[in-house]
């Protein structure tokens, strides 16, 4: 399991930002935390680093998202095996 903590920054268009929040809330692996101004703390639980990366790309591409910053990553040993297999 690969768990990460993100700071998601939304654009300053309220409608677009709301749309992006809804998309995030309804996507399975995210937990939405507190928000401050145009930013929100979010966690992602994914099966492996690659899936986490794919979600990252998905969120980055959503209309209403200004940027995504990953500030915390925890991975289990199985992730190393994934890393080994893929390198």
């Amino acid at each position, binding site marked *: *399991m690969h*768990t*990460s*903590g*993100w*700071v998601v*920054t939304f654009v300053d268009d309220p409608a677009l930002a709301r749309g992006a929040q809804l998309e995030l809330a309804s996507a399975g692996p995210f*937990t939405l*935390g*507190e928000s*401050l*101004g*145009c*930013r*929100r*703390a*979010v*966690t992602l*639980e994914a099966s492996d*680093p*690659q899936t*986490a*990366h794919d979600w990252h790309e998905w969120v980055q591409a959503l209309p209403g998202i*200004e*940027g995504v*910053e*990953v*500030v*915390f*990553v*925890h*991975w*289990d*040993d199985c*992730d*190393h095996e*994934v*890393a*080994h*297999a*893929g*390198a």
Partner: protein
Amino acid sequence: MRVLESTRRQFIRSAAMSAAASVMTARSAVPADAPKPPGGIELPVLPGVAWDKAPCRFCGTGCHVQVGVKDGRVVAITGDRQAEVNKGLLCVKGYHVGHILYGPDRLTKPMLRKNGKLEPITWDEAIETIAKRIHASPQSFAFYGSGQWTVPEGYAANKFIKGGLSNNHIDPNARLCMASAVTGYISTYGVDEPYNCYDDLDHCDVLILWGNNFAEMHPVLFSRFIDRKLKGDKITLIDLTTRHTRTSERADHVLVFQPQSDLSIANCIAQQVIASNAVATDFVDKHCTFRKPWKKAGDPQTLMGEPCTFDEYKQYVAEYTPEAVAKTSGLSVEQLQLLGKLFADKTKRISSLWCMGMNQHTQGTAINNLVHAIHLLSGHWGRPGDGPQSLTGQPSACGTVREVGTLSHSLPGDLRVDKPDQAAKAEKLWNLPPGRINPKIGYHTVQMWEKFCTPTDQGGDIDTLWVQVTNPGQSLPNLPKLFEKKPANKFLIVSDVYPTATTELADLVLPSAMWVEKNGVFGNSERRTQQWFKMVNPPGEARDDCWQTIAVARKLFDLGHPGMKDKDDKFLFHMTDSKGTEVPVWKWESYYGTVNVDEKLYDEYRPFTQIKHKDVAPYTELTKARGLRWPVVKQPDGTWKETRYRFLEEYDSNVAKGKGVQFYHSVAGDDKAFIWFRPYVPPPEMPDKDYPLWLDTGRVLEHWHTGTMTRRVPTLKRAMPAAYVEVSRDDATALGVKTGDKVRLETRRGSLEFTAWIDGRGRCPKGHVFVPFFDETKLINKLTLEAHCPFSKEPDYKKCAVRLVKVSA
């Protein structure tokens, strides 16, 4: 079991959430240079996980991470919220940094090439093999190091070769990335390294990027600047570039110029500042003098040049009018005037940043001089947010190369081997007999590899070359000449963590420990010295590079090499424990024993830094801090204070009272900086009818330099799997090339096939192609040119002539 697992998951999730929430809070509210909260910031609580600080292994930004270790393995990474550089943020490489330790093909045993094949040998055999070769011919040995060497590693290598072997053939890969910044600083201020720091990003009104793809190369610093825009600050980003990049997407003005014309653009700014009576006369009169590069125009330029008057200077830049420069630079008159007006406007704070675009340049020293010059001339110098600053690409290019002096002419503390009084200072600090240090400057990188690749009977007088912490088989320019021609009887030793293009040709491969598998100290781009402790063991028999150097030195000592002893017949790396008993640190079992070898070496090095007021902090202070910017000065209450801005009385205690500004290491000894004129000089190779395009090379966000580490992180590898050639839509149409087509690039050095990408990650202008250099399966440096700046000796990887041929759709 399931309940336990679910509780564990909750723990991890809430740790992730609290890390994100606190970074968010910190970024939303507090300016980056605000004091740290008392009592520190709590780290995520995770069962069985111990946290410790370390700088990120990758770029010169010098972000700090907290590394989570469980059962001897790195299992978590979080941005360090106590670090002023990044305040908890990391880029995509930074948050994957833990994975670089765990690639499946880590080197774990020393290997010697026998009958063409690398075969495992013992460490004793490896160390003896190296020592015997050096003992037989110390002067034909060379050491090729790195801006990724830790400070103690570089210091030990430097002392070993310059203080022990009386041989100056040591040079680092940083010669290839920031040597022009060094010569630029020295010939302007008399001493190397920026006077300012990243705080400028928080205070500037205008940020000008000189050929620097900031968004991909220093992404965390870029976020720090863009954050201000998000908060509503009225700030302007100007991207002076030869191709559109991710940085251009966020810029207010994208000024695409012709390669090499940056020299004319800088002179054009100076011309306009003078023409609009905007010279900062008071500042210039008090703190600057003018400099021309020759006695008379047409003579060869020199590094330190000749004095000239303001009137002469004015005459030299007079021809660089916007109208004249618009004809050659690719910029319009209006774009050039935009720059001229900005520098003429005293109300704005202007920060100039640069990295490889200005440094990897056959006129690298000149363009560095000119950017300093326009800031000094216009008075855009000395206020926070108002000045020029170079950035580095490697984590310790400043710390280990510039400060420790691992370049072929230098000694620790900015001393030079060819200045007898300075060499004598080093001999004294090293307790060596007078005259031990050879006054002849050693080979710089291009020379060193040329000599190694030339047969001995044809003048190739380097026979044994030891490479540590770098991958020249991929990063040197013109690889067919400087690497691939290695004669069979020459001996290449490579210490590394993974197989690379360099180990492929190596005769002896030594497995190294990396990053948090060893103790370390780095120095980042803003004079910040950063320390970390070993957290996990290296795999198999991998060992520290520094230990490898000391073990070879000891073997030479045992073989009777006189240089391995100091004046008192003690071993060059003599270390004692708290009781005064010698610790045999050359034995691996003792290396992490009763002494901290890093601390011992660092403490020995520290007095060197005091010679030119670059006083680095005591090791014990570094263990508590997220890096400290030198000069670090002891306060009356016993605390240590870092310096944000040098040469300014308000910040720098080395400035004499009442002076305001003092360039206290100025070239002329008059406390004044030089305002340089350097003319436009054409590049040595330009597109012509046979090779009609410019070839530019560089980096991408996902991969760090030659990709040795980041290509082992599956996510990063998949995100950017292979090198490509970026082609402009105009050229692609003319050549009938589409995205995905196979094309061949041909230069006078060689040819290689790539997949074409039109308007992809970046956008080249017509007549220009770009290839990243991270991919070991497509070595673009087989095609690049080794021509270099005459002063810094740094090659130009950004411009040579190429033709593109379509191979197949």
